[in-house]
């Protein structure tokens, strides 16, 4: 029953998102082109990114055993932001320059954080990883501040609007690239579901219960951060989804990652598709940053869930 509700909401969200928009809904060549080339890829991209962020958040919360972990915690948003700001300050041109520089910045952050995480030897210490993420994020933010202060590029303001996140630039290109890319890390995380269940008990108990702790940590960390880097590249940093959707699903579905992960994917996708539909229609032609809507719409839902299910 729960799956039916979740699946139906996802379908409803996608249909709504395709049906509404500033250009309205009509069967004429112009509107159909808008629906085909803008709305459908936009809804799909929002769904895939929302799902990916929710899966990443679920996996990272289990990995670092911290309920406050979210996809951007590990220095990723800072790295991506630094990439974008640097690209704009250097006047690098080209249609793919923002996504590409965000992705490269995020990759750089991942590598540094990972190196710091294993610095204590062969073991990936998740506490050090967490701390390194925060520190690298702070360093990247400081570098962004320095570039902002010293660069004469007036367009830098727009870098921050871009980083706030949104699907304004969604296209079939970005959907297909993201879908092809995301399939592998999402699958890898799903295959680690059983180990993640054990990891939530603590690393030692997980070891005794037969989980390959080191391998799982590296695999999940690598997959989660590469997935987030791609999400940042196509849509900026969208908060809330990756943090709260996993908790909402745990309240309703329990803690087993085999169900938690797919349910989180569906709910994250649904939430982000709805949020994006609201973001672009409520104040049309002006768009709200989608992260604003996810939080505005998501927090009340989450509060309801907590009141209904937590005992």
């Amino acid at each position, binding site marked *: 029953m729960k799956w039916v509700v979740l699946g139906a909401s996802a379908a409803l969200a996608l249909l709504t998102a395709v049906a509404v928009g500033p250009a309205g809904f009509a069967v004429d060549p112009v509107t159909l082109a*808008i629906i085909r080339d*803008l709305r459908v890829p936009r809804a799909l991209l929002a769904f895939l990114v929302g799902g990916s962020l929710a899966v990443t958040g679920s996996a990272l919360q289990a990995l670092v055993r911290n309920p406050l972990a979210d996809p951007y915690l590990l220095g990723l948003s800072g790295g991506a932001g630094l990439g974008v700001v640097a690209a704009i300050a250097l006047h690098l041109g080209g249609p793919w320059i923002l996504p590409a520089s965000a992705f490269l910045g995020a990759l750089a952050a991942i590598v540094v954080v990972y190196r710091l995480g294993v610095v204590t030897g062969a073991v990936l210490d998740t506490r050090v990883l967490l701390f390194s993420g925060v520190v690298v994020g702070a360093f990247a933010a400081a570098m962004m501040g320095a570039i902002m202060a010293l660069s004469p590029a007036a367009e830098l303001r727009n870098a921050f*609007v871009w980083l706030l996140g949104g699907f304004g630039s969604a296209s079939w290109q970005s959907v297909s690239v993201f879908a092809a890319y995301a399939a592998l890390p999402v699958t890898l995380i799903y295959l680690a579901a059983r180990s993640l269940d054990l990891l939530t008990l603590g690393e030692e108990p997980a070891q005794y219960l037969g989980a390959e702790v080191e391998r799982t940590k590296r695999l999940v960390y690598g997959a989660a951060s590469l997935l987030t880097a791609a999400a940042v590249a196509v849509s900026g940093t969208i908060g809330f989804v990756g943090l709260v959707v996993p908790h909402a699903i745990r309240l309703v579905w329990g803690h087993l990652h085999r169900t938690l992960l797919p349910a989180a994917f569906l709910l994250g996708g649904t939430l982000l598709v709805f949020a994006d539909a609201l973001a672009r229609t409520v104040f049309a032609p002006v768009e709200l940053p989608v992260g604003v809507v996810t939080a505005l719409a998501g927090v009340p839902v989450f509060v309801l869930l907590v009141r209904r299910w937590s005992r």
Partner: protein
Amino acid sequence: MSVLAFRPPGRGTAACFPLLAAGIVACTAREAPLADRLQDDLGHIVALEPPARRIVSLSPSTTELLFAIGAGSSVVGRTRWCDFPPEALAVPSVGDGLGPNLELVLSRTPDLVIFYASAANQAAIARLDDLGIASASVRLDRLDDVPLAARMLGRLTGTGPRADSLAAQFAERLDSARAARRGGVGSRSLDRVRGVAVVAWDNPPMVIGAGSFLTELVELAGARNVFDDVALASAQTGIEAIAARDPDVLLILGDGLPAFAQRPEWQTVGAVRRRDLVAVQGSEFERPTFRSFEAVLTLREALRRSEARARGRAQ
């Protein structure tokens, strides 16, 4: 004693003008009366016995106006964004204009600091008040602000006659340009009013709304901003919203054709598909100034060329 206010009733701060004026009379009555008391665009009294001799100008538009009215030689500090006229570049920069570095400002030993009228500057203004340095906040967002600001700066710098005459010329030209537009004279060469979307940024798409002087430039150039129902100066929007408004032309601030025009999702916008893109560049498109009519002429010419291209295609 007289209270000089530079905003006609009915706009912005002027809505509370009678109240403000009453308050000013009440408080100035107790102080030593100066010849003229100037009220700036934030409603503050400018505590200065004109003319100002050492001015730090913290916005590119006021720097440009000061030079235009012949007070350039009194400007001893500017922001790093002040790029016109070229002589302004010889003045030492004090960095940013919004939330300025007061130490750098004070190092220029100003007797008057001119701010852009913004809440972001309140703290700096209060600090200067404490230090006994006069400041004036000038709002320069729309073309109507240009003559008002010029008159105020003229009075503060002792260049009143020149400033007043430039201001009067500008205001007159603005009036007649608007009257001509209403009468259809200015747009006679355009067989109908063309819709323009001013795209300030592509990812996320940002367009210029009615709050910006750029919308006025577009109108004076004989066209219409298709986003003139958006009250903001600029707003984030979506490609679909631009496609739905179906502008005849996309106006882009910058040099040459933007990269986004090649992207497939932008081809849903008719003007992009037809390559009806007009790019304009120059500081006269960055702020309202006495040069705004040059900007209008440049824009009108660019729109005319693009329309001719469109006609050529249609035949």
